[in-house]
């Protein structure tokens, strides 16, 4: 092959991959602009500080939903994080462990289960035995959703660390658990935080698993054992109503959710760089 043709092909491929990237990013731009334009009008002081108002009444906001989103998602992160981290560390640091193959399979298969079934699971396992809807049951559903993401992210990150790091620790006479806790995990901290935050972002956008679990609440509530509201739930319910002020608020809530997710994502990336 002559040189000029090789250089030409090089150029063409550069154009090609950039074009491919552009094809991906254009729709994202469209979506963000659309959400922003539809939602920005609904964001005002009331939106953040008031409970919802019935249609036709001015004012009213999303306070219970905003509070609920944080409470439910953070509880879910605590549960899903513990299980996901445990599984991920086991897969990466103990490659010989017999539980690894089923774990990896579960991580992949759980990723393909529709979120509404996670809700069903939590309904059967938590709501029915406890005799009522609760924010806690919603957190369980979201935690199940987070597990595969956290597990996989943790494994990926730990595997990227050079094996020499562990060998150095072991050579110093440290037991394996100290190597993992004091050398490996701190070195991978950024990546693990990224995984946690990405899982959080993914779960925070889901309405379906909360329908039969967290249930929603039109009143402000901090009780984890009672029904609680959440932004995706409110978006879902308001978006299907026929009333203009509710639909406007649904877009506002969508914008708020997207903004929160953008911040989460940004933090996740900063965590990596540290």
């Amino acid at each position: 092959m002559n040189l000029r043709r090789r250089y030409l092909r090089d150029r063409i491929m550069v154009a090609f991959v950039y074009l491919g990237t552009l094809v991906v990013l254009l729709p994202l731009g469209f979506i963000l602009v659309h959400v922003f334009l539809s939602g920005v009008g609904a964001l005002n002081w009331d939106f953040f500080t008031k409970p919802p108002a019935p249609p036709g009444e001015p004012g009213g906001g999303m306070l219970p939903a905003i509070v609920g989103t944080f409470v439910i998602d953070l509880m879910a992160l605590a549960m899903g994080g513990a299980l996901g981290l445990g599984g991920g560390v086991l897969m990466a640091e103990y490659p010989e462990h017999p539980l690894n193959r089923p774990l990896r399979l579960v991580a992949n298969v759980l990723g393909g289960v529709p979120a509404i079934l996670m809700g069903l699971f939590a309904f059967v396992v938590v709501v029915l035995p406890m005799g009522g809807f609760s924010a806690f049951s919603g957190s369980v559903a979201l935690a199940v959703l987070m597990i595969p993401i956290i597990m996989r992210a943790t494994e990926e990150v730990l595997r990227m660390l050079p094996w020499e790091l562990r060998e150095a620790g072991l050579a110093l006479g440290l037991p394996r658990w100290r190597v993992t806790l004091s050398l490996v995990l701190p070195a991978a901290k950024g990546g693990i935080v990224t995984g946690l935050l990405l899982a959080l972002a993914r779960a925070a956008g889901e309405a379906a698993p909360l329908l039969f679990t967290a249930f929603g609440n039109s009143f402000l509530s901090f009780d984890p054992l009672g029904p609680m509201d959440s932004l995706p739930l409110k978006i879902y319910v308001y978006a299907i109503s026929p009333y203009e002020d509710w639909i406007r608020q649904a877009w506002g809530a969508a914008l708020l959710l997207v903004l929160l997710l953008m911040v989460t994502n940004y933090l996740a990336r900063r965590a990596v760089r540290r």
Partner: protein
Amino acid sequence: MLRRFFWLVFLLVPALAAGVTLNGAGATFPYPLYAKYFSAYHKLTGVRVNYQSIGSGGGIRQLYAQTVHFGASDAPLTDEQVEAFERKFGTAVVHVPTALGAVVPIYNLPGLSTPLRFSGPLLADLFLGKVKKWNDPRIAELNPGVKLPPFPVTVVHRSDGSGTTYVWTEYLAKVSQEWRDRVGVGKSVSWPTGLGGKGNEGVAGLVRQTPGAIGYAELVYAVQNKIAYGAVQNRAGKFVLADLATVKAAAAIDDFPTDTRVSLTDTPALDGYPVASFTWILVYRDLDKNRAFKSKAEAKALFDLLWWIVHDGQKLNEALHYAALPEVAVRASEANLRALRYRGEPLE
């Protein structure tokens, strides 16, 4: 800073814990109205009623699972379901009607200024996919003088299970033998043709975007979204456009059944709109049989709430495009509510 936060919590927690809280779940169609009721009722009495629209079927199932104080449904319980409750819990389920709704045929035909007229059998054939073009002679016959475009008919129906679908298919089954045999009545049926949209807004959106589309939706969605909807010929032979008056006329029945489980479709009323229906709140007659009730105070609160809804609450209906209950339904509900018991004691 921290201290102030603690004060806030101290002030908030008792305020949040005070008063009775009732949980309800079910139908999505009356959700805006219920939100209005419960907000007004909270201001009036301090009782918190938390209603979540998870779907009629969901509402019935949650009532059966005893996770809620009351359920809500756009379709009455079937005889089998009533029996299932009797068998499992030894109590009847009381239906309390709260409002009336109408389902209207919506369509997208640019350039028409007056509402189209439909007959029941024509609607059935359109939704069966047997009438394929808008300039079909059967449509033209009912709409003399209207210039119908030669567009293909695109049927749009609900993809999710829905009380709206139940009312619509029940009407079509009453007026068309073929519909009854081939499709039947239900919250989700096997549609012979067409596109499925999720929710009323999904159907409305598809119809609005697709020239030549016909679908069905609750009246309020058609009105709020400014989508054209047609008049339907009732049993008396009159073409009736759905509005609050014609819907209410359809519900004014002489021999109103005591349990209020009544179908209003294909009404014999002269001015009645033929595709109308009640929407109900469902409660156990013996409230103590429902594990969700922890005290008589809760039962009493529920009774007061329902009493208020069928009386004073009705004034809120029309502003939100729901028709208020006719007198006969209010009387029947009063009798039913008086029959509610908690550990055998009446609640009035």
